[in-house]
């Protein structure tokens, strides 16, 4: 779930743009270098972006019965590395904001930070860690997708709690509120995304 247009106060919106910017700029530099060195990679990167876009449009059968979509950032990070995903994720979020009214332009910085920066890096980190500890590929991929999905929503909760602290208990109380609404219902979905990612990777390895 992306933070909707206009949901964050201006100062927060700007702060999250500033927080995401270094990651996206780093990703753009890497991508530009990649394209300069291997011109044919434009099409492959475009294909990666389209794959992530379509993956995030699949409907997950969720345990809670609500309809939800995978973030795709865990699988994306494992397949294409986090810096590239920062750029592809930004492009995807821009398309979603303009074509689906999903997310927003004023909240782009915040959504990029949770979905295209923290999620992919956390997922990728867990993947490397699990592989380093000798876990099977499928286990590592599951952990990557699970952690990427869940960390994305935790960051979203933090972003909302910072913007809308509880009148009594402040940031922590608000974190509890948003956390329980978004992140807790998100755990079964994170499991679902993990399972889906394993299924996809298994099929890809077989073919």
């Amino acid at each position: 779930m992306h933070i909707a247009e206009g949901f964050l106060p201006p100062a927060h919106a700007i702060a999250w743009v500033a927080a995401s910017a270094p990651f996206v700029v780093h990703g753009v530099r890497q991508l530009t270098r990649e394209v300069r060195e291997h011109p044919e990679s434009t099409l492959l990167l475009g294909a990666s972006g389209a794959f992530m876009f379509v993956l995030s449009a699949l409907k997950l059968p969720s345990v809670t019965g609500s309809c939800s979509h995978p973030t795709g950032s865990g699988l994306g990070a494992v397949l294409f590395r986090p810096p590239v995903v920062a750029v592809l994720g930004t492009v995807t979020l821009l398309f979603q904001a303009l074509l689906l009214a999903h997310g927003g332009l004023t909240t782009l910085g915040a959504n990029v930070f949770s979905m295209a920066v923290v999620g992919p890096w956390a997922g990728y980190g867990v993947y490397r860690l699990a592989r380093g500890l000798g876990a099977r590929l499928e286990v590592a991929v599951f952990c990557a997708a699970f952690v990427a999905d869940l960390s994305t929503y935790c960051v979203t909760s933090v972003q909302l709690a910072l913007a809308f602290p509880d009148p009594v208990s402040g940031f922590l109380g608000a974190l509890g509120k948003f956390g329980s609404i978004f992140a807790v219902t998100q755990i079964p979905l994170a499991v679902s995304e993990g399972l889906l990612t394993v299924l996809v990777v298994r099929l890809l390895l077989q073919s």
Partner: protein
Amino acid sequence: MNGIPVDGTPSPLVALRGVSFGYEDGPLVLEGLDFEVCGGRALALLGRNGSGKTTLMRLLGGGLRPRSGRVELAGRPVSYDRAGLTRLRTTVQLVVQDPDDQLFAASVAQDVSFGPLNLGLPEEEVRARVDEALAALDITGVGDRPTHLLSYGQRKRAAIAGAVAMRPRVLVLDEPTAGLDPEGQERLLATLEALRGGGTTVVMATHDVDLALRWADDVALLTPGGVRTGTAGEVLARTDALAEAGLRLPWGVAVAAALRSRGAAPAGGVAPRTAEELARWAAEGGPSAAPAG
């Protein structure tokens, strides 16, 4: 063939009765359509691109639900709940034109096993059906290959095998010969003949009037005004109806008509259906020396 069957006639396997359909808020693609698939007949569905052939086939297979009118299975209206759809889908299987839209598993055998597994059949039965379907489509040898490494013709056969493994009574194929070379087309037609011999009713959408004349018992012509159904010989001799559907006369029909109009051939009789038949027909001045089949 439109309308309600006369008493005593067996119900068609599947039928559309006064069906209208349009996509989302769009205009109607089909309006008040009556259409029947009768057991044992080879039916060719003709019409220009955009005439609604694919929509009609999806309605038959339960992939789309009519806006009004009803779809009937063995004379009874289809219910669109889980049980009703399962009944429809185990009777009618649709194979779309592009095999890549139908193949999604890692290997051919896995893909073919998808339907039977979803039927909840025991593993042995699934295996048996997969083997049978691969054999019927003559692709046993590539069962364990990944689908995207197959040739186009093989992918086309794999997609059909996936439908055949559901053991449908009616197999509906959208342009099955498109993209195949002439040899591939002949092989596929032979395969379809074998399936028909095994009791499967085959419906095929095509643009090829010569193929329709040669292969089909019945032809349904989809025009803006509705559907015109009849035996292949009847429908494919109607210049006006064919023109309305954006089609020309088959070679055999055109030449036979020209010869007849000049008195160079007797009236009546079956039009020649292949180039060889036509050559004999033209040489011998009529159908007499050209035994059907």
